[in-house]
């Protein structure tokens, strides 16, 4: 497996007047990479381009060493990737097994026995074995999310694209999901889009912050937190000079922004850094760590 699986060079995408991706350059390789950004940052557009369901308007994309703009390359990429969209659809009258079985056929698993084994395997990975023969319309939201992950895992993909997979899940389901993703066999390259910083801290070796269609940060989660170093302080009262502040459980205020003299500094978290980064509209420079 090559080190770089996804390569975007000056990739642009517009929706009418809105620039969803603005000359994005990035490379994604081994491990789990988090794509962090607010709503409308361009995360889903980037993931959809990587999933070969959307074509960029400018720039060059290379996936698994292949060009998705070329027909043969696109099919080969599709054979080797798994994609869980932000809002996965289901055939509600199918059972969980039937749905994943159908996806397995579309993934060119024509042999029925081989396919059945694979469907059972992926349903086991997401802990839906007991629900295999239940109709999808009878499954809970969390189970459906796991089913969406199961269909993406069919065929042991080399590249797994997960678009906001934990959206709408309760804390227990989110933890279960994290456990599943972190235990994935075969070590695929995972690109995980989210706006939940906890997912990034828990799962990712690397994080890319996307805001207004541009890459704002690319590095380790710890390095992202460090970008807020010296810009987080604790006070007993609300401070109007802070870019953002909130009252904590102990009654004190946590402030982020440019601290006043003699402010009591606090250890920055990835949340602080993320808020400073995406909240700063004047900051157009990419930070690399």
């Amino acid at each position: 497996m090559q080190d770089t699986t996804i390569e975007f060079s000056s990739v642009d995408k517009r929706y009418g007047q809105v620039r969803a991706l603005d000359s994005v350059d990035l490379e994604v390789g081994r491990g789990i990479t988090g794509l962090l950004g607010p709503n409308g940052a361009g995360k889903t557009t980037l993931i959809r381009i990587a999933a070969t369901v959307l074509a960029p308007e400018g720039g060059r994309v290379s996936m698994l060493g292949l060009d998705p703009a070329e027909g043969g390359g696109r099919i080969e990429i599709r054979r080797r990737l798994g994609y869980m969209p932000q809002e996965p659809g289901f055939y509600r009258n199918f059972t969980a097994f039937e749905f994943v079985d159908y996806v397995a056929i579309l993934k060119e698993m024509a042999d029925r026995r081989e396919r059945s084994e694979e469907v059972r395997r992926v349903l086991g990975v997401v802990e839906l074995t007991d629900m295999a023969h239940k109709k999808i319309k009878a499954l809970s939201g969390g189970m459906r999310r796991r089913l969406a992950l199961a269909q993406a895992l069919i065929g042991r993909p080399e590249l797994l694209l997960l678009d906001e997979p934990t959206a709408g899940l309760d804390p227990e389901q989110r933890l279960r999901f994290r456990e599943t993703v972190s235990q994935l066999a075969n070590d695929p390259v995972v690109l995980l889009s989210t706006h939940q910083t906890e997912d990034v801290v828990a799962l990712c070796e690397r994080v890319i912050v996307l805001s207004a269609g541009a890459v704002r940060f690319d590095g380790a989660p710890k390095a992202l937190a460090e970008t807020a170093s010296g810009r987080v302080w604790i006070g007993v009262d609300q401070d109007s000079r802070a870019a953002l502040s909130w009252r904590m459980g102990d009654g004190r205020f946590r402030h982020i922004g440019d601290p006043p003299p003699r402010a009591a500094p606090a250890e920055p978290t990835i949340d602080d850094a993320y808020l400073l980064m995406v909240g700063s509209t004047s900051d157009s420079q990419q930070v690399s760590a």
Partner: protein
Amino acid sequence: MSSVQGHADPSRRVMMALANFNGRKLLFSWGLMAAYGMALLGTAVFVASSLGKNDVSFGDDGWTVAVGFYIFAIFTMVATNHAALRDRREGTSEQHESLPADPRIRAGGLVLATAWPVAAAAVLLSVVAAATAVWLVVPSGVQLMALIQTAVLVATLGSLGVVLAAWVPNPFVAPVVAFAFFIVQTPEVPASWHVIFPLAHLGSVYLAAWHTIYLGGLTLVFAGAALARSGARRSVIACLLVGAAAVAISLAVMITQVCSGSTCLF
């Protein structure tokens, strides 16, 4: 490495796997099972009402069989249309677009899936023919052709359901077309152009065979048109051309020969 790699061109095998999957789903859908029940009922009524009669013919006594299978064929169209619109209805288009089996393969898998309802119809029609031969009278050639024609009609309307979904992807279209099939009747006074009606039963083996070819041609045209929606490949164009030629030739033969003077072979 993906376990699906290494297949030279798996599209045919995938299409067949899809056909089997969709075929089973079609056959066990409640609508088609109900329609099959109607066909069974029509067959049972025919057999029951014909027992004890000396002079039995499908033309006079077999209308319950014809109506039952006509309903089955129309429900096959509605069922294939419903299945073909599944991605649009359930919002799965995007995730399926990221998979290697393209829309042409998916449409092909659905067209071929009509073989399952056709097989189910053929089984029951064989029972009709056998029961008729054993208990009633030996069916004539025309009567046997009518049975074959009925099985082909299931394929024709099944393909029509897929092509409607491909070109007019609206869930209301197939039910409207189905309703039209029920209300549009052959006019009282026979005319040669009536051969275009799918249930036209012609009074000679020769013409009935041409009508079966006509239905087969329509099936190929519908299948080709459904596949052409996602790109006109050589095999798709060939399918369309063969189908169109079969339709044109069969219509020409039937229209010129079905009516001789004042007698029409309906």
